[in-house]
């Protein structure tokens, strides 16, 4: 019995869902003659028949409702028919007058009840009444407190009671209770009342709404003791009652020793959170009592578990005494330190509230947060607004003074807008730069607030903010294209002190240039010096190189040597003219690169590529340059400087061309703390450093980790890379490939305007009204009884497509089905 009714219930639930999401799908009402009807009745099967005159078109509203009830009743094994009374076949059910048409409920061919049509006012009433009649034994209707007490004392130690109050028979709540009784009626005693006095007498204050209490009578052994009661808080819907009863069935308290993330109970499946009370051997008894107390308080709202710290393999932070796990998949557990049990309760309840909103209006997530700044730049600039910057260290330029100050001397000009956060964040770096350069630079540091001098900015071709431009007498202004930070801009300014390419006039000078003597003070800003070597007659390539040098000015030091004795240099460094010499000052190495008829743009490319290191330390600043190569990264994460052994191994591998398909690099967590964030994303549990990973950023996003139990040695690495290449290694994680979507929805002013307009019937906009109708219908369908605050209307444009919305809704319901 249980299993069959359970199946029925499943169908019932899914029907409710279907009903919510596609109202139109309803089975059709069969129309029969009386004779035909009685011949279809099967023994033991219930059937509802509405007898009416064949020609009477009245009661069409009732017929529509009846039509809608066909499907739900069929799901409970009850057939529905409309019987047309024709003159030839009179039946006693047909009645004499046209007005006294009635509906009758049969089991087999035994009449159980007759219903005047006005009691069956809508589909809910039809289903409720029919089930109520059929479940006459399972559901006790009572009207006094005495009745309730009698039932309670009779059932102590035997069965628990589901006591519900509904405002009237035939309401949607009544139907929900009856549908639940259909499933659970054999397990629990269902008791129903419509008497408010009864409800009041058991201590309920809110008598306006329907209520359901669970009386825990089964556990009661002492007959003088009262059954514990749990009030169901969510509105009475079939699904909510089902969920509530399921939690009543679940064990009150479970002891676990496993990882809270892995634990699974019925609560999670029902969308309820879990509360783990962390316990230790020493305090076990007390903890268990606390946990039980909490469990009673949270019954129906959350699952409560006792987590034994000592036997647990999980690393629980030392002071944490409560672990909170949300029902949503993928949300990490929260370790909490709560010293008051009420805090646990309120934590769950506040969380539930959010959950409810999410459930009801799934596009409405976290709507109260819409006015909270989630732009880190805007927020930090705003928080810093009261700090006075030493702006006087830079010259404020206006429309009137621009020509006299900026054009008159070599200047750097920052164009910003006072209201724009990114500009203002960079202005701080700019002021820091001014502090660094105070009194040392010949370059004038100026700024223009484009919020004030809009026309000036437009004239200077500044259309976005912030922009930095360098103005030098007799030269066209150059826009700075580096990182918007103090260090990089400083480098740009310093390197711009020399004209690039520098004209080198003697071999002696060239040597000084290459060993860094010539521009000693600048070497720290450019780790590489480039020298172009040309015979005096190579005019075209010389011009191209000069152009390229100009292009790179401020980023790289370039020099040019094309005296008659250039061969001395070319021979010394084994270069064929025209050629580039690259002096890497840090390593003290000088390389040569041949330069065959390359246009300026290619020379720029050659130089930029030459600047890349074989095994660089990757930083926030230089990552973009390496990413341009579009290759997977091989990163060695190191706490502090890299072990020279590792470096050697890597360089050896690189030299042997084993790393050509990768960008080998290392990351110093002390210089680049964000690296920790990266590691946390890659590893569940962080193995000890150093770590080597290969990140396939550009195709697939897989992350592979070099086994931490292996030593970082050339051989091991090579073997691992080979296996990787052969596809024999499995990845530890895959980087998410999602597009960046709007973090939060926006206000849907259009529908707010529509809603306002629909209150003025004078204005007709066909499209508007259509949409409003639809959304109103949605609301009705979504929740028939829930009384809740109207949420702020929000929008997500992609969801404007209603069919999409339905699809998503359908999906979430398929999972619910599986749970059941």
């Amino acid at each position: 019995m249980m299993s069959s009714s359970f199946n029925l219930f499943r169908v019932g639930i899914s029907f409710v869902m279907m009903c919510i999401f596609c109202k139109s799908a309803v089975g059709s009402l069969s129309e029969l003659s009386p004779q035909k009807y009685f011949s279809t009745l099967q023994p033991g099967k219930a059937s509802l028949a509405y007898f009416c005159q064949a020609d009477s078109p009245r009661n069409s509203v009732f017929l529509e409702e009846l039509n809608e009830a066909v499907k739900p009743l069929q799901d409970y094994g009850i057939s529905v028919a409309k019987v047309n009374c024709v003159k030839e076949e009179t039946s006693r059910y047909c009645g004499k007058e046209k007005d006294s048409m009635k509906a009758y409920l049969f089991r087999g061919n035994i009449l159980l009840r007759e219903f005047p049509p006005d009691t069956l006012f809508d589909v809910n009433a039809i289903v409720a009444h029919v089930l109520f009649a059929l479940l006459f034994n399972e559901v006790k209707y009572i009207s006094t407190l005495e009745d309730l007490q009698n039932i309670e004392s009779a059932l102590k130690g035997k069965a628990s009671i589901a006591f519900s109050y509904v405002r009237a028979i035939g309401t949607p709540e009544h139907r929900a209770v009856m549908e639940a009784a259909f499933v659970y009626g054999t397990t629990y005693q269902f008791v129903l009342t419509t008497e408010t006095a009864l409800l009041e007498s058991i201590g309920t204050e809110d008598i306006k709404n329907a209520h359901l209490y669970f009386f825990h009578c089964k556990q009661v052994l002492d007959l003088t003791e009262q059954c514990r009661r749990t009030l169901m808080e969510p509105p009475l819907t079939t699904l909510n009652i089902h969920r509530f009863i399921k939690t009543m069935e679940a064990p009150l308290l479970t002891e676990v020793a496993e990882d809270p993330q892995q634990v699974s109970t019925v609560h999670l499946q029902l969308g309820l959170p879990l509360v783990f009370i962390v316990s230790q051997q020493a305090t076990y008894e007390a903890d268990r009592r606390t946990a039980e107390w909490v469990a009673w308080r949270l019954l129906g709202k959350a699952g409560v578990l006792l987590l034994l710290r000592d036997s647990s393999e999980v690393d629980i932070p030392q002071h944490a005494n409560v672990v909170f796990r949300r029902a949503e998949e993928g949300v990490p557990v929260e370790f909490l330190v709560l010293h008051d049990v009420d805090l646990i309760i309120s934590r769950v309840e506040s969380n539930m509230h959010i959950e409810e909103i999410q459930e009801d209006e799934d596009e409405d997530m976290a709507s109260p947060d819409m006015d909270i700044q989630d732009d880190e730049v805007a927020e930090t600039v705003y928080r810093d607004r009261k700090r006075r910057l030493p702006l006087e260290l830079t010259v404020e330029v206006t429309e009137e003074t621009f020509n006299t100050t900026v054009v008159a001397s070599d200047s750097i000009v920052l164009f910003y807008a006072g209201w724009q956060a990114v500009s203002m964040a960079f202005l701080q770096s700019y002021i820091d730069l001014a502090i660094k350069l105070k009194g040392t630079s010949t370059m004038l540091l100026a700024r223009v607030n484009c919020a004030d001098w809009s026309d000036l900015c437009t004239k200077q071709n500044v259309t976005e903010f912030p922009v930095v431009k360098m103005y030098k007498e007799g030269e066209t202004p150059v826009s700075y294209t580096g990182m918007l930070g103090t260090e990089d801009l400083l480098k740009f300014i310093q390197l711009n002190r020399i004209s690039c390419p520098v004209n080198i006039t003697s071999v002696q000078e060239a040597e000084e240039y290459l060993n860094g003597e010539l521009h000693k003070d600048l070497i720290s800003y450019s780790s590489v010096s480039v020298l172009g070597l040309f015979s005096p007659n190579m005019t075209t390539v010389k011009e191209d190189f000069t152009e390229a040098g100009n292009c790179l000015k401020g980023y790289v030091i370039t020099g040019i040597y094309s005296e008659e004795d250039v061969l001395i240099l070319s021979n010394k460094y084994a270069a064929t003219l025209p050629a580039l010499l690259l002096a890497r000052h840090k390593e003290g190495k000088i390389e040569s690169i041949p330069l065959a008829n390359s246009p300026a743009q290619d020379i720029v490319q050659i130089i930029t590529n030459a600047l890349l290191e074989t095994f660089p330390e990757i930083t926030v600043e230089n990552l973009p340059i390496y990413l341009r190569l579009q290759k997977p990264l091989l990163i060695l994460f190191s706490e502090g400087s890299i072990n020279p052994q590792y470096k050697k191994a890597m360089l050896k591998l690189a030299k042997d061309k084993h790393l050509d398909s990768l960008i080998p690099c290392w990351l110093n967590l002390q210089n680049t703390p964000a690296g920790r964030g990266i590691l946390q994303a890659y590893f569940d549990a962080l193995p000890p450093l150093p770590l080597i990973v290969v990140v396939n950023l550009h195709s697939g996003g897989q992350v592979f980790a070099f086994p931490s139990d292996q030593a970082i040695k050339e051989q091991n690495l090579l073997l691992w890379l080979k296996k990787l290449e052969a596809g024999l290694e499995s990845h530890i994680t895959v980087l998410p490939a999602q597009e960046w979507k709007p973090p939060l929805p926006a206000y849907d002013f259009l529908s707010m305007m529509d809603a306002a307009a629909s209150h003025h019937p004078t204005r007709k906009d066909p499209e508007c009204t259509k949409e409003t109708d639809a959304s109103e219908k949605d609301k009705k369908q979504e929740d028939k009884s829930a009384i809740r605050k109207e949420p702020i209307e929000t929008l997500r444009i992609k969801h404007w497509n209603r069919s999409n919305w339905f699809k998503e809704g359908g999906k979430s319901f398929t999972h619910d089905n599986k749970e059941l």
Partner: protein
Amino acid sequence: MDLWAAARLWGPPGLLLTWALHLALCLRSAQTSVPPSRDYCVLGAGPAGLQMAYFLQRAGRDYAVFERAPRPGSFFTRYPRHRQLISINKRHTGKANAEFNLRHDWNSLLSHDPRLLFRHYSRAYFPDAGDMVRYLGDFAQRLGLHVLYNTTITHVTLHKARQAWNGHYFILTDQMGHTHQCSVLLVATGLSVPNQVDFPGSEYVEGYESVSVDPEDFEGQNVLILGRGNSAFETAENILGVTNFIHMLSRSRVRLSWATHYVGDLRAINNGLLDTYQLKSLDGLLESDLTDLAIVKDREGKFHVTLKFFLEEGNPSADADAVTLPQDDNDNFAMRVAYDRVIRCLGWNFDFSIFNKSLRLSSGGKFSKKYPLIKASYESKGSRGLFVLGTASHSVDYRKSAGGFIHGFRYTVRAVHRLLEHRHHGVAWPSTELPTSQLTSAIVRRVNEASGLYQMFSVLADVILLKENAMAFEYLEEFPVQMLAQLETITGRKARHGLFVVNMEYGRNFSGPDKDVFFYDRSVGHTEDAWQSNFLHPVVYYYRHLPTEQEVRFRPAGWALPRPTAIHHVVEDFLTDWTAPVGHILPLRRFLENCLDTDLRSFYAESCFLFALTHQKLPPFCQQGYLRAQGLVGTESLRRHGVESGLLRDYTTADRLHEDGARRPLGSSRAPGPPVRPPESNKEEL
């Protein structure tokens, strides 16, 4: 004679001179068959004509302005009769932004020369008309505009020619009988014909254009003024203190510009009569249709108001004193008193007389016949290539915006010029192309400073055309929104991937002659109520596709634009400063990112770095900045604020790693990161 004497003295050069003269004469005679031809002819050197001349000059176009008077702005030499302009000359706003300041400068024309701002011409808040004449003279002269003064165009006709830009030339004939051939005709002649209503006795009525402005002449008189516009009130204001009383008669109720938000309605500066009327000082306002009235003069030369109906009824030849007066039946008739003067102040009409029928330049907008019929692009509906500029083009936004006034039409003239540049010279509508990360800023910048949007609210609007994948956009300024459907042909820009329109609007039901604009609680402060803002505020419309002509024409009543896919109102601001980070910019950003279905937040380089190594895709800000090695580094103090706010994480302390326990999922709640969508695999697990 002297010349000839000189020529004789000089000998050969004289010959040369005569030869040259002869040549010129020949040319002159040749021109009678082929008139001098110009690409652009502008009629009238008033503010609109000069404004157009300025743009044509800057673009290096072949143009000429024809002006009847010997100097520009001749209208202002006589009008307003009482010499005070009612356009605001706000010399200080506390801001340096020149574009913003134009929002409060109602008299200057647009030019690149900061000396040509009206504040240099008058210190008065409501300046003298003489200053306007001086200003317009300087404007024409300083900018070297090509104006032919003392040239009265008496007749304009159309000459079909296949090779012409528009399939025809406009042939202008001046008072000397000389003709000029024009490819495009720009009519900026304003409204010059006083509006007269014909009724019996209208011959006794003095017109605004000629009535005395000396208050002495009205000493102790009963005065009736017909009309209820600014000129009527201006006339009343002048004589208010010397008359017995003034009655003002017009068909419709008084429309106060502070209630209608239309500058052409009665301005507070002229409303003295309303004050004295309501404070029971004998002056008064009456409503009646003028065409039903008649005025009769009695033997003493006083005027009586009666009904036309009574005149027709009685004997037309009967003595004036014998005519039935309304008070004969109805002894408390309001206007039973006899008047000493009746003054007509009924406004002006466009002068249609010089245009030949072939131009099909007809009158009749929906409001009145005073304006020529034009499209929202200011081109005549009758003939292509004929544009109406300035006051005469006000039918487009009559009683709505400022298109009939200098501070409005200086922008519509620019829009017409941009249209012509594209139509005839292949110069696309000016635009700025920017990456998406600049979208919010681009809008914030414009709504905070743009004067054209502010003055010509709901007529000119900025249009943002999205590029493929919404990674970049083109920003077009001050496009006539009613032409939105024709945007591609007018501007030469493509709108394939959706667009935003940035407009300025008053609240839907805020403006009107009978509206109380000072009601309690009239201002909206909360961002979620922004759509109910009453005061002028920016509104952004999002369209997935360019609206069609049908959609523009049959847009919902009261809407400036057709129904969009989504709409955003930036909440009204008391200071008209829409730069509040949370109140204005944040909701705008949320709207834009939901329209584009992307994340438009800005990030520091460190965050981008983290994303670059933990996500396969990056938000636009990181893509367009950090990945091009132009990331925003930030300073230590900003980073600290970031950590405090919870938006940035502090990775510097190593032990945090263990303290946090389990790994943090990529992109959870407040920390930056794309929202996590439950993966498909969830279903299986259940």
